[in-house]
């Protein structure tokens, strides 16, 4: 199953869904419309995707979690999640799923930085990424791209992430730490990512300060066992 959380993504979603269709992955495509004010849900349904519609905006994390809950409900073995803004390349989906299907791990992260892919970040975001890589490493998680939204998750991870401790806004290092603490194996593979076609990103501007503050608290709570 492929889960795509979307909020006001009507200008970008049809192209992404067409690229996914062209890949012929055989996965059920689930678009979680997080209370969009545009035609996101209609366009997704027209493209043949299963659409889960939030009655109002709940946040990126809540959108992902609705997808996980749906996957558990229909008995999916694993989920690939990707962003709707065109950052992630559907041609990487099979590679992302491969380690899960071989039973080598429970969670696969598509990393922009495992191998040189030419992906460039601004100074502040690079600093932030390095900080979170160091933070994850301090808890024994060796990853190069802890904020990547391009991931494949096995059933055990889905069951864990469907709990109440999963954040409604930005699930990043804190949820990785939760998975790690529950003995779930995390692995990275190198993927190519494009610049987001969205004008503003989740971690841009003043939000990044709030993001770092919130993430530090969430990591502290997760490390103290404040997870379900």
């Amino acid at each position: 199953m492929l889960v795509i959380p979307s909020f006001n993504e009507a200008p970008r979603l049809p192209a992404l869904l067409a690229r996914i269709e062209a890949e012929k992955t055989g996965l059920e495509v689930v678009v979680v419309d997080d209370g969009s004010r545009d035609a996101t849900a209609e366009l997704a349904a027209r493209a043949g995707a299963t659409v889960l519609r939030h009655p109002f905006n709940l946040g990126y994390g809540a959108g992902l979690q609705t997808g996980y809950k749906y996957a558990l409900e229909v008995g999916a073995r694993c989920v690939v999640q990707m962003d709707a803004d065109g950052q992630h390349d559907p041609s990487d989906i099979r590679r992302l799923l491969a380690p899960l299907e071989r039973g080598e791990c429970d969670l696969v992260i598509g990393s922009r930085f495992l191998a040189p892919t030419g992906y460039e970040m601004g100074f502040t975001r690079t600093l932030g990424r390095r900080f979170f890589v160091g933070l994850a490493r301090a808890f024994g998680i060796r990853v190069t791209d802890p904020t990547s939204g391009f991931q494949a998750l096995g059933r055990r991870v889905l069951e864990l992430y469907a709990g109440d401790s999963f954040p409604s806004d930005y699930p990043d290092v804190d949820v990785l730490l939760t998975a790690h603490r529950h003995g779930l194996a995390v692995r990275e593979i190198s993927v190519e990512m494009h610049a987001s076609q969205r004008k503003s990103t989740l971690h841009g501007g003043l939000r990044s300060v709030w993001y770092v503050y919130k993430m530090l608290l969430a990591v502290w709570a997760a490390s103290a066992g404040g997870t379900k």
Partner: protein
Amino acid sequence: MNDAETLAHLRELFLDNPDLEAARWLALSISLALVAAVLFLVRRRGLREEYTPIWLAVSAALVFVSLRIDLLRELTRAIGAWTPSSTLFFLGELFLVAICLNYAVRLSRASLLIKNLAQEIALLRAQVEKLAARGEDARE
């Protein structure tokens, strides 16, 4: 008289200041108005019963303090404040901080429940749409 003695003398003057009858009646009126507001809100279903004890307790405390200002004066002396009114402000601020924290906790819980409920609606709606589509297919 040195500075410290002057300050101590001033403080005693403040503490021994005779009670103002008007202030006592004002405090009593406010307490009774608060009780009336709480009961009115409960009757109009604007306030749930489980939230009333704290406000009724505040009203009772205000009534008690208005009738026994001498005890408030003793408390003021004990905590090192200068005037009974500053002690009241201090206690009021502590109460407000505590109640804000309490409401933040309740709000966090309510947010989680709302999120779960909205997700449940999304899942059920998808199920209903799927069943409706299946029904239409069967009719055709």
